[in-house]
């Protein structure tokens, strides 16, 4: 046991499992991506050469990069507030004493427990022109429907809609858990003071849910830059990159076009962007949040 006598040795041993995992799967890949982004694309005849920031300069001139970045911004703006708002609304609803609320909770949560690929296939059927569920319902009503996934104007929004549908139930569970830790006495105290349910929600419930909101927000932002699987099944980024997002573009670059240095450069930009967002969220919002 002499070896444990040294506090530093013991400390390092205790954190080593986490450090090994993080270094192997997070930090080393990030650094190695950064390094390979500084090299040119090699082939058997011409090995990779150091090109400095050439990959990043090329990125600035790559119209597809700007398209997928814009798509991703639209996608984030379309999914994050809507799914969080919907999650909060559903949580407040099923937190009340309704008959059959256990069933309702399950129903709202179901999209989350379904496998992504299966979900995407179901929605693929919904969106299919002519024989899809949407067209079957809307066409007889005389509504002229577009080719949801095939039209550059609607493809991205079709995917946004699925994401909201899927994420809201997941986020609802966090809100519901937070709501249920709230003492019912708070509501009663406010009621005796004459506060309306609306006032109570905005002055008490919502501020007390802020830690949950921050957590959910961070998750939602990360998810919005992480989406690959739906696009795979539904649109493959098309038509004409109208529904391609950054991560899908990175995937295509690396594994369809086999341009790994450029994919590495894209990855570094994405990482930097997400790190910046996380800093803003934790740095700015954290100060205004009450933790119990």
């Amino acid at each position, binding site marked *: 046991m002499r070896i444990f006598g040294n506090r530093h040795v013991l400390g390092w041993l205790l954190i080593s499992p986490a450090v090994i995992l993080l270094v192997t799967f997070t930090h080393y890949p990030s650094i190695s991506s950064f390094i390979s982004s500084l090299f040119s694309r090699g082939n058997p005849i011409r090995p990779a050469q150091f090109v400095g920031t050439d990959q990043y300069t090329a990125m600035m001139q790559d119209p597809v990069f700007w398209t997928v970045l814009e798509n991703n911004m639209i996608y984030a703006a379309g999914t994050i507030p809507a799914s969080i708002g919907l999650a909060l609304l559903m949580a407040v609803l099923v937190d009340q004493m309704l008959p059959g609320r256990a069933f309702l909770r399950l129903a709202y949560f179901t999209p989350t427990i379904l496998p992504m690929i299966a979900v995407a296939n179901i929605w693929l059927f919904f969106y299919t022109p002519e024989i899809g569920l949407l067209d079957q319902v809307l066409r007889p009503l005389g509504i002229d429907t577009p080719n949801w996934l095939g039209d550059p104007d609607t493809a991205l929004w079709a995917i946004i809609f699925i994401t909201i549908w899927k994420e809201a139930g997941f986020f609802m569970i966090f809100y519901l858990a937070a709501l249920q830790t709230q003492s019912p*006495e708070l509501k009663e105290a406010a009621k005796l003071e004459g506060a309306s349910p609306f006032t109570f929600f905005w002055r008490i419930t919502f501020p007390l849910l802020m830690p949950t909101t921050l957590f959910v927000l961070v998750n939602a932002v990360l998810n919005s830059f992480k989406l690959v699987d739906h696009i795979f099944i539904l649109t493959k980024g098309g038509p004409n990159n109208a529904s391609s997002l950054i991560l899908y573009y990175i995937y295509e670059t690396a594994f369809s076009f086999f341009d790994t240095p450029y994919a590495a450069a894209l990855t570094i930009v994405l990482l930097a962007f997400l790190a910046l967002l996380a800093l803003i969220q934790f740095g700015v919002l954290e100060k205004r949040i009450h933790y*119990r």
Partner: protein
Amino acid sequence: MSRIVVENLVKQFGDAAPVVNGVSFEVEEGTLTVLLGGSGCGKSTILRMISGLEDITSGSVKIGEREVANVDASKRGVSMVFQNYALFPHLSVAENILFGLKVRKVPTEERNKRLMDAAELVGLDELLERKPAQLSGGQRQRVALARTIVAQQPVCLMDEPLSNLDAKLRASMRAEIRGLQQRLGLTMIYVTHDQVEAMTMADQVVLLNEGKVAQMASPADLYDWPASTYVAKFVGSPPMNVLKRSANAPAFLKNWEAGWRAGVRAEDVILADEGLSGVVDSVDYLGSETILWVAVGDQTIACKMPGRSTVKVGDDVTCAWQVEKTHWFDETGVRRDGVQTASPTSQGSVSQGM
């Protein structure tokens, strides 16, 4: 006008037996009434029905001559202190105290004046910017009190407000709450399971048992004239000795009718030459007094001796008391020797043993 009249109050959840079953009592303006009882006796439910947080199954609640059974909780003119204080954890002390006034749109100037007055009254002036998590239990309790003070409602309801505090703090808060109630002339209903709080604070005690009023009296009458064996055993520490007549009934208790029970307070029992003989089962030394638990046949008599007693466990002793200290109860546990009876049927019956 803030006299409270509760008549025939009933609360029933679904088809289950009523948790409150025909409770009636009155609280005079500016007085403090304690609803006392064990857990599940319905005392908190009654308070919640008066406040409007719980619907009334049947019966009536009048506050200041106005029937409030169908009036919204916020319009009944009551404020309430909750067991866990119900402070809003993200708001400062000042914001907590002012929450109700802001909701009711009291002008800022008036609001701040009331805040300063209340904060000074309960000694919170230095802590107004703190969050509840930074306060001690007693300070949180004071915030809850200040919140009811600024509301300036004539009626104040308290639901076991001291049960989360330690014994020492509880004693000082008892005096503080009672002092506030009297200084502000509040009409107060105070729910507790702690008989010490009831005895020390109340003008009137309503003792509840299984959803019904067991006795309604001043603390002194409750102690001196318990209306039933339930009351006798609930109030007092140790509880009153309530004895069945055994084969060798002592000579000094003549007139002990078959089936009746004889009650006597532990402090009235003395060790004598003649009376009920038994063996000391255990001895509780409490400093200022000693309680002997004497086994007499299959019954136990508690006997309170001043100071330290020389009697040891296993000693043979004989218990007796002055015959006029006996409280008589009949087969059903109802008091048979005089005033303050809960059941009208027992009124005017013979004063046995007096």
